[in-house]
């Protein structure tokens, strides 16, 4: 079982979370030709990226910086209430 350190929660196993994908700033406006790439284009190569994680028991959201090659969590921040 893999664990990481979370604000408010302490050390929790990965399995307590639903992972909701990579965090990308949502543009206010999209030109028609930019819609498809926004919806579909991914860069699924080994790298560090920031992801949304949702803690199922407490319903808290977190921003998790993770290395997708080694699967290690490098940093965690609690999401603010006004974030979407």
């Amino acid at each position, binding site marked *: 079982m893999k664990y990481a350190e979370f604000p408010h929660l302490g050390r929790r196993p990965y399995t307590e979370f639903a992972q909701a994908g990579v965090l990308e700033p949502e543009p206010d406006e999209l030109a028609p030709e930019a819609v498809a790439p926004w919806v579909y284009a991914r860069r699924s190569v080994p790298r560090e990226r920031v992801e949304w994680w949702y803690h199922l028991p407490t319903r808290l959201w977190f921003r998790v910086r993770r290395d997708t*090659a080694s699967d290690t969590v490098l940093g965690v921040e609690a999401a603010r209430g006004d974030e979407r």
Partner: protein
Amino acid sequence: MSVRLLKYAFIEDHAEQPWFGTAGPLRDSYDVVIIGAGGHGLACAYYLAHDHGITNVAVLDRSYLGGGNTGRNTTIIRSNYLTPEGVAFYDASLALFRDLSLELDTNIFYSERGHYTLAHNESTLRTARWRAEVNKHFGIDSEVVDADAVGRAIPGIDLACGGNHAVEGALYHAPGAVARHDAVAWGYARQAVLRGVEIHQHTAVTAITTRGGRVSGVETNRGPVSAGCVLSAVAGETPRVLDMVGLTSPIEIFPLQACVTEPVKPWLDTIVVSGSLHLYVSQSARGEMVMGAALDPLEVHQRRSTFEFVSGLADQILDLFPAMATLKVNRQWAGMADMTPDFAPVMGTTPVDGFYLDAGWGTWGFKATPISGKTMAATIAAGRDHALVAPFNLRRFDDFRLVGEKGAAAIGH
């Protein structure tokens, strides 16, 4: 094969001859470079030589032949998909698979077992009915059967499923089969090499070179190679290769795990899949129970195995087959599945001239090995998409014309 077997019985020295010699030095130039010596890359090389007389071909693999998903998959072969594009494609693959042992002069242990996709609730039964109707329309042997028929056909099954999610019926596909994955890769490799193709193992492609929007070759850890056509057939490493030519795709990489138990006497002759329980099981020719589950939840570029996988799988499979509680798991492993949002592959030409793609095979691409090889070879020879691969072109994500195969591909392989 039978004559060979007879001869084998009378000879003293049973050492198997090498299937093909090791390739010599890497040359400066080929007509076609194929990245990835998995089943798909090797099949394409064979059909380029066999069907089109294109033999100045190099297949490059950064590791060993068949060591990717090809050698890690659980070899379920079937054609009871949900979309007309998918059904036509996979059915053409089954037709090739049936004759493949003869065509490759290699016993691939093709074994038709029948394939049950269990339904534990109304909505799964509805999807099963939908699939059966699409399948029958295309002449594929596929029908919905009730729980009694499931109970008669599958020994040892607990139809009440531990009292939690009783089996209501199933989609039954008589042609469902399994085969020996390594033999498929080796058979294609041997026949390709006999026709002049070179296979270079431990040769990693590190860059793809272009000139004026056209592919001109590749860089490798053994030096540069020029080629007018480059095919990427690298499954779990597709996004890294796309990075080399500046293309993007919706492909995301998730580990997919599987395991086998110790071998026991033959007792399960069909393939059993349950989407609701996220598992599938068949018995190999050696007697092992071959089992798998859903994808791991997180993108990871690594082939590690996890305890969560085996414990989760065991928990579910014992609801279905309580007698398996005494079996020990012998081995577990992982591959890297290249997933697409519509559970259909990404194949054919790309916006970069001379760069071809055969990817997005996720958890279900072994069964497509022969037809992918054949249609990609035709695509490369003609410089345009073969009719069977056209619906799967990368372009579909620009036009929002996805091929909704999820209902038939998710766990069922």
